[in-house]
């Protein structure tokens, strides 16, 4: 009885590991090129954070700085309030999962998992026990004697995770962890890894360019663009209340329509030929060119004109199983997509139709900048 109680205490203690990470004014330059401007980020213990952004946004640079493979040009990195940006990578106790897994090809699965423990000079019996425990945790017990090349992509990823978690890290870093997996396996591995990281209670940071991956995995998402943080928020908040045109275009699908604010506060005349009355608390100033973002699922397609509806012509109807996506074009020539349940009326290509906005509070208005919203994704 006594021994089992002690084990349980020991277990709960190892379960609740993980440190609080703090980045203050972290920046990096490669020669004259600024890769990261000034990043401030506070990550709580046990949190799962996604660094999301297009390629070249600085997310990998930031991960390398946290891991200790790169010295930041400016700023401070601290774990639990202790500055570590001068600590070499091998003393940071970080579990890193690489994009290509970087398993040691000349070592067996068990030897790979044991590597970090051996490097820390753990006693042999403890190494053996810990390796068995980690392999059981990722359901790879029977693969201990195999070599990495004899494993599938998903199995290699499990081993990479077991190897990272074996050293009882304070922080787990995952670099594009799912990009090498095929689409069917990806969702399963996302669920598996998320539940594993959560059950370990370890603070985790993953880098991804895939917004769906970030939305499904992370507690909070850091959206990076051109070396700067655009927004830090929960997946739902990012989706419902994007802080910038970039975030709006990058997270989920969005239709962008051109318009101009009228003299009356909170009303916008769309180029597509419709007047919108916004419900937002802070209406944009009058007589400005604006960009209006409406999510495809916030629109409904109807066959008759209704007040405050947008007249369109149906171009393509794509039945995608549970719902259909209908691609339309407005009188002003702007493309607009509607996503709705298959049961609703979807018309046929060439038909005239009208779009009704379901929830005006989820329509976002951004002041049109000189930069084109090229981030709008199909």
């Amino acid at each position, binding site marked *: 009885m006594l021994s089992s109680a002690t084990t349980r205490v020991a277990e709960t203690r190892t379960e609740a590991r993980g440190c609080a990470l703090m980045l203050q004014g972290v920046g990096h330059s490669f020669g004259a090129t600024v890769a990261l401007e000034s990043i401030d980020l506070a990550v709580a213990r046990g949190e799962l954070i996604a660094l999301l952004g297009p390629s070249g946004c600085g997310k990998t640079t930031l991960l390398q700085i946290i891991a200790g*493979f790169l010295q930041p040009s400016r700023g401070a990195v601290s774990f639990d309030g202790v500055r570590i940006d001068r600590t070499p990578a091998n003393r940071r106790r970080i579990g890193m999962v690489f994009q290509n897994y970087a398993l040691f090809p000349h070592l067996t699965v068990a030897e790979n998992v044991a590597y970090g423990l051996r490097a820390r000079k753990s006693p042999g019996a403890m190494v053996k026990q810990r390796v068995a425990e980690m392999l059981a945790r990722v359901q790879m017990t029977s693969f201990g004697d195999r070599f990495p*090349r004899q494993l599938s992509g998903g199995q290699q990823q499990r081993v990479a995770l077991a190897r990272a978690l074996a050293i009882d890290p304070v922080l787990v870093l995952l670099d594009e962890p799912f990009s090498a997996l095929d689409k069917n396996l990806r969702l399963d591995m996302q669920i598996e890894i998320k539940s594993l990281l959560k059950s370990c209670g370890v603070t985790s940071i993953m880098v991804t360019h895939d917004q769906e991956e970030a939305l499904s995995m992370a507690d909070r998402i850091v959206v990076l663009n051109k070396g700067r943080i655009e927004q830090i928020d929960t997946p739902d908040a990012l989706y419902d209340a994007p802080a910038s045109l970039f975030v709006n275009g990058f997270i989920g699908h969005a239709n962008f329509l051109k318009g101009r604010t009228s003299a009356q506060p909170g009303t916008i005349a769309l180029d597509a030929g419709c007047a919108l009355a916004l419900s937002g608390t802070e209406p944009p100033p009058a007589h400005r060119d604006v960009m209006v973002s409406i999510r495809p699922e916030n629109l409904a397609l109807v066959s008759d004109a209704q007040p405050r509806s947008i007249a369109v012509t149906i171009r393509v109807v794509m039945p995608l199983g549970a719902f259909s996506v209908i691609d339309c074009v407005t009188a002003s020539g702007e493309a607009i997509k509607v996503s709705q349940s298959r049961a609703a009326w979807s018309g046929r290509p060439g038909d005239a139709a009208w779009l009704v906005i379901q929830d005006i509070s989820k329509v976002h208005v951004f002041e049109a900048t000189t930069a084109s919203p090229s981030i709008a994704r199909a």
Partner: protein
Amino acid sequence: MSTPRPPGELAPALPLALVFLAAFVLPLVALVAISLFRTPAFAELSPAQYLRFLGDPFSLRVLADTVMLGLEVALCALVLAYPLALVYVASGPLIRTGLIFLILLPLLTSTVVRTFAWIVILGRDGIVNSAMLSLGLWDSPARLLYSWGGLVLALTQIQLPLMALPLINSLLRLDGNLARAAEGLGAGRVRAFVTVILPLTLPGAIAGLLLVFAAAATAFITQTLIGGGRIILMPSYIYQQSMGVQDWPFAAALSLIFTAAVIGIVAAIGALSRRLTRGLDAA
């Protein structure tokens, strides 16, 4: 899966096959045949030449020295080429271009020229001796030429490209994330090198060892010119027995024994490397 080929398909290879037959297979058969005669006058077939070799301490010593020379040169080349390869891989494109030019340069000059360069350096009135003497560091010229150390030094420099190129190739093919993964898991630089980089570049090192060993053990010109008459190794021993003493059966037996020894050691190193790199070729 061997599908029967139409007879005409192999015809273009026929001239080369004939050359090989005439210039390689036939002489080899002749060599075996000659080695089986008991006397230089080609009388009486017997394995006497081989028994003579095995019973003669001098001959055995020459073979052992030659094998040792090959191994020493191969190891020296490995020790010198590994840091060079590491520097090459860590450098930028400009320095790489310069380094690869310097590494390849010896291959573009003839062995005879390179050997004579070493004679100029190591000779009694050579660069090393005159520099040391005029600096007052040595009282009298040291014997660098015609010495074992001088021979190992010269052969190491001459054969270095054969070691550096396969090493650079295997280091370049190494995934940079592996070293990072080792470091991230808590391994220091030395440990990461010994446990990850070294084993994974072993195939390149073995390839280099085999090439340098075979080249150094059989380098007749360099061995003869740098070693002078003082160091007798298998190539010059064979030359002496055939052209000097005119004992063709014994020279033939020496040739075959030497060939077998070189092939045996190459095979042994190869087998060792296959055991050490078990995971790399596991499909």
